[in-house]
C-alpha cells in the first residue's frame, strides 16, 4: 500500500465537511485557552492531548459498522446503569457531589458514558419496535430515560442530567411522541415544578434564583453571572483584542478555561467574534441535520438526530448561562471548554454521526 491508499483508508469513514467544522471549533478552543490561562502552554498541550484521545475514539467509532453499534447498545446501557448505582452506593465524593467511581486504576464518571448510552439504548429500542409503535413503547422508552436521569440528578449533577434528559427527549420527539403527550408532559412538568424545586439542592435553587436578579448577591452566588455578563458586554462590537481582555487576564472572570470560556472569547473578539463562533456551531449542527435527514434506518435517524440536537443543547445552555439568560448549571461549551471527559464523549458522538453517514453511503454504492 502506498501513502495515498493509506490516507484513503484513513479518511474512508470520516466526513470531511463535519471534520472541517469540528477542526475550526477545536482551533477556537486552543486559541482561547491560551489566552484564558494567561499564556500557559500547558493548558493548550493538555487540551491537544484531550483532542488526540477523543479523535482516536472518534476514528474507531466512525469505522464501526452500524450493526455493531446496535449490538453494543444494550450492554453499554446496562453497564452504565450498574455503575451509576455503584456511584450512588460507593462513589467518591468531591466538591460535595458523588459523581466519580474509583475503578482502582482510574476515576471514572459514569454519567458521561450515559450521554451516549441513553440515546443509543432508546434508539435501539425504537428500532426494535419500528412501525409498530404503541403507547406502551413510549412509556418504556421514557422509563429507560428517567432511571439514569434520576440517579444523576441525585449525585447531584444538574447540568449532566439536563443534557441526558434532553438527549433522550430528542429521541422520543423524533420517534414521533404525540404532541398531545408532549403538551401533557409540559403541563405535568409545570405542575410538578414546586415538587422538583424541593428536590433541588440549595445551591441549585440559588443559581436559578440568581438568574432573575444576579445583583442581589453580587459577591456571592451572583458573582459568576455578573462577571460573565460584564466580560461579554465590555467586549463590544469588535472585542478588546486577543490576550487583551481585562476581565479575563485580571481574573475577575471565574472558570475561565472551562464553563466561562465563551466569555473570554466574547470579551476579546466582541460581537463579530460571537457571530463567527455561532456560525461555526450552526455549520456543525447543520451538517448533523443533513446526516440525520439522509440516514437510512430508523435507528440511525434517531441516533443522528439526538446527537446533533444534544450538541446544540450543550452549546445553547452554556452560552445562555454565560450571557445571563439561563442559570449557571455547570455545562461546558462543547469542544471549546477545557476538559478530557466531555471532549471524549462529544467526539465519540461525532464518531457515531460519521459512522452513520459513511457506512450507509457505502451500502448505497
Amino acid at each position, binding site marked *: 500500500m502506498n501513502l495515498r491508499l493509506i490516507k484513503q483508508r484513513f479518511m474512508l469513514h470520516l466526513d470531511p465537511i463535519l471534520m472541517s467544522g469540528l477542526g475550526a471549533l477545536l482551533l477556537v478552543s486552543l486559541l482561547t485557552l491560551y489566552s484564558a490561562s494567561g499564556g500557559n502552554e500547558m493548558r493548550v498541550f493538555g487540551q491537544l492531548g484531550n483532542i488526540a484521545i477523543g479523535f482516536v475514539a472518534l476514528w474507531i467509532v466512525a469505522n464501526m459498522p452500524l450493526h455493531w453499534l446496535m449490538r453494543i447498545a444494550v450492554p453499554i446501557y446496562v453497564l452504565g446503569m450498574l455503575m451509576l448505582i455503584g456511584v450512588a452506593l460507593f462513589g467518591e465524593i468531591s466538591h460535595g457531589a458523588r459523581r466519580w467511581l474509583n475503578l482502582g486504576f482510574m476515576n471514572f464518571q459514569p454519567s458521561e458514558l450515559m450521554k451516549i448510552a441513553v440515546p443509543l439504548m432508546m434508539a435501539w429500542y425504537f428500532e426494535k419496535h419500528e412501525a409498530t409503535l404503541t403507547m406502551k413503547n413510549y412509556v418504556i422508552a421514557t422509563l429507560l430515560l428517567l432511571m439514569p436521569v434520576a440517579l444523576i440528578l441525585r449525585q447531584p449533577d444538574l447540568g449532566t442530567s439536563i443534557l441526558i434528559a434532553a438527549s433522550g427527549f430528542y429521541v422520543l*420527539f*423524533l420517534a414521533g411522541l404525540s404532541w398531545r403527550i408532549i403538551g401533557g408532559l409540559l403541563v405535568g412538568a409545570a405542575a410538578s415544578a414546586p415538587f422538583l424545586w424541593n428536590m433541588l439542592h440549595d445551591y441549585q435553587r440559588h443559581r436559578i434564583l440568581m438568574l432573575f436578579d444576579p445583583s442581589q448577591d453580587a459577591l456571592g452566588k451572583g458573582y459568576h453571572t455578573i462577571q460573565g455578563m460584564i466580560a461579554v*458586554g*465590555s467586549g463590544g462590537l469588535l472585542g478588546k483584542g486577543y490576550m487583551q481582555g*481585562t476581565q479575563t487576564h*485580571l481574573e475577575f472572570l471565574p472558570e475561565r478555561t472551562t464553563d466561562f470560556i465563551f466569555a473570554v472569547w466574547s470579551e476579546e473578539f466582541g460581537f463579530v467574534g460571537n457571530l463567527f463562533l455561532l456560525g461555526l456551531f450552526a455549520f456543525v449542527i447543520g451538517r448533523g441535520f443533513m446526516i440525520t435527514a439522509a440516514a437510512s434506518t430508523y435507528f440511525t435517524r434517531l441516533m443522528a438526530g439526538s446527537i446533533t440536537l444534544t450538541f446544540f443543547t450543550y452549546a445553547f445552555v452554556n*452560552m445562555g448561562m454565560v*450571557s*445571563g439568560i439561563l442559570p449557571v448549571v455547570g455545562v461546558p461549551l462543547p469542544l471549546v471548554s477545557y476538559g478530557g471527559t466531555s471532549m471524549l464523549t462529544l467526539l465519540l458522538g461525532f464518531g457515531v454521526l460519521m459512522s452513520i453517514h459513511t457506512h450507509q453511503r457505502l451500502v448505497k454504492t
Partner: protein
Amino acid sequence: MTPNVELKNHQRERYLFSLRLIFCLGFVAVLLAILVARTFYLQVWKHEYFDTMAESNRIFVVPIVPNRGVITDRHGEVLARNYAGYTLELTPEKIPDLNATIAEIGKLVEIKPKDLRRFRKLMSERRSLQTLPVKTRLTDEELARFAAQRYRFPGVEIKARLFREYPLSETTSHLLGYIGRINQQELDDLEKKNLAGNYMGSDYIGKTGIEERYEKEMHGVTGFEQIEVDAGGRAVRMLSRTPPQSGKDLRLTLDAELQKVAEEAFGDYRGALVAIDPSNGEILSFVSKPGYDPNLFIDGIDTESWDALNNSPDVPLNNRALRGQYPPGSTIKPFMALTGLHYDVRSPGFSISDPGYYMLPGSSHQYRDWKTGGHGRVDLFKSIVVSCDTYYYGLATELGIDRMHEYLEQFGFGKQTGIDLKGETSGLLPSTEWKRKRYEQIWYPGDTVSAGIGQGYNLVTPLQLAFATAILANDGVAYKPHLVKEIQHAPDEKQAQPEPLYDLHIPAEHLALVKGAMQAVVKPGGTAVGAFWGVPYPVAGKTGTAQVIGMKQGEKYDEDKVSEYNRDHAWFIAFAPADKPRIALAVLAENGGHGGSTAAPIARKVLDYYLLGKKPKPLQKVIEKEGAEDD
C-alpha cells in the same frame, strides 16, 4: 401485520420523522437567533454600561495628598511647617473589641492617658470608616516594635504622614490659627462646594486664622494614581498618575521677631497689639494675649486641655485683636480733633477754660474731667497733650453725634476693616439712626457727651484702632490691613497689592496740628512721657483708658478698690517716626489701668525694636509711675 401495512407505516414514519426534524431545525434556528440577539444586546446595545463596569472592576483610584503650603513671615522665618512622622491609627469599624485592642497596643507602644482621652473625643465625632490616631509621633523604636507584631492587630495601621507644626506656638496662635481633622460638618460643606473630591485623601483642614482663610491656596490639588488591580485586589500596574500640586506657600507681612518682642512686652498682661505699616497696610505684628498652643489642636485636643483653655478666666481662645471690642477711651481724641477741624467747629486758636467738669446747657449734671480742678486754658493742641476731657465734651456736643459718625467712620470705626481673617467684629460707632434701630430710643444729648471721649456706646477692636492710627499716620490715605504679602506662584492680580482704599484729603495744617500734639504726648507735660523718656526717634502717640465698670455721679474710681478684672483697660496708639511713619500701632492692656503706664511701655518696646533693632528686657508688671499722670 401485513408487509403492506408495515410499509405504509414505514412511509408514514419517515414522513413524520421529516416533519419532526424540520420542527427541530426551526427550534434550533430560533434559539440561535435568541443568542445572537442576547449578545447584540450585551455587546452593542449595553456596551457602554458593561465597559464602565469592567473599568471600575479593574481600576482603583488612589488619591495622593498634596503637601500643605508653608507659612513664613516677611523675612522667611517659618511659622507653619510640615514634618514627616508616623502615627498609629485604627479603624473602629474593623475592630470588634476596641478596648482590648488598645490595651494590647499599649503593651508595645506607650499610650498616655492624654492620647486615650483624645481618641475618645475623636471617636464621638468621627466619620464612618475614618481611621483615628491612637498615638501620634511614634519613635523609631516603637515603630519597629509594633511593625513586628502588626499581624496581631487587624484594623490597626501605621501611617506615614506629614504633620503640621507651628514652631512659634502661642506667639502666632491667634494669627495663624490651626488645622484640625475634618469633621462631618466640614465634609458636608466641602461636598456642597463640590470640593469633596479634592479632599479624598486629606485628613486636615484649616479651622481658624490664616489656616482657615487661605485653606484653598494652601491645601493644594490632590493628585491621583489610577492603579490596575486584579480580582484579588493586588495592584498589577499603574495606569496613570496625576501628580498632586502642592499647596502654595504664604509669605506674611508679619515680622516674626517683632511679634515675639511684642508678645514678650506684654509680660503677664492680657491684651492685644496690632502694628501696621501705614504706607501699605501690611500688618507687622498681630498679638492677642494670652495665646494658646495651636499644636494641641491638630490631631484633636484632649478634653482636659480643652476644658482648661475654654474655662480659663483669661479666655485664651478669644482673639482679642480681631474680635475683642472695647471702648476706645481717649484714643479717640485725635480723631475727634480732626472731626472738629473738618467741620470748622474748632479752630486751632480757639481755647476753653476748663473748670474740671462740663455741664450741658440747662442741666446741672457734671461730666467730670479726669483731672480734678481742670487743666486751665485748653486749646486743641493742649487738649490732646494733656487729654482734656472737658474740651471734647463741648466739642462733641457742638458737633452732634451724626457728624461724628459720618467723619469717624472714614477712619474705619464701626465697620470691619476687611483684613484677610475670618470672624472680624465691627465694633460700634453710634449714631441717632443706630440707636433708633437698636433700642427704638431717641438720642440724648448726654449720649453725645460721653461719646466725645470714646466712652458710652463706642466700641473698637484693637485692629480697628491700629487701622485708624495708620490712616492718620499716612495723612489720611487708607490702605486695607492685610496679613499675606505674597502667595507663592499666584498670578500677580491675586497678590495683595497695596492699593490705597481712599484718601480723606485732610488739610496739611490740620494734620500738622494733631500730629504735633501727639508728638507732645510723649514729651514732658504729655501723658506718656514716662514710657518714652529719651526716645531717639520722633514718636506720635495718644493714651487712652477704657472703663470697664461705670462710676456713679460723685463717685471716684480707685484702682485698688476694684477687682482685677474690673479695672480699666489701658490703651495706647502711636506711630513712628512721626515725620515719616514706618509703623503705626494700637496696644490694649486689659485691666491695665492707665494707658501711659502700662500700654505705652509695651508700644515703646515694639517701636524700639522695629526702628532701632533693640531687644528689650522682659517687662515687669509693676511699673513705676513717672512724669505726668495719664487721663
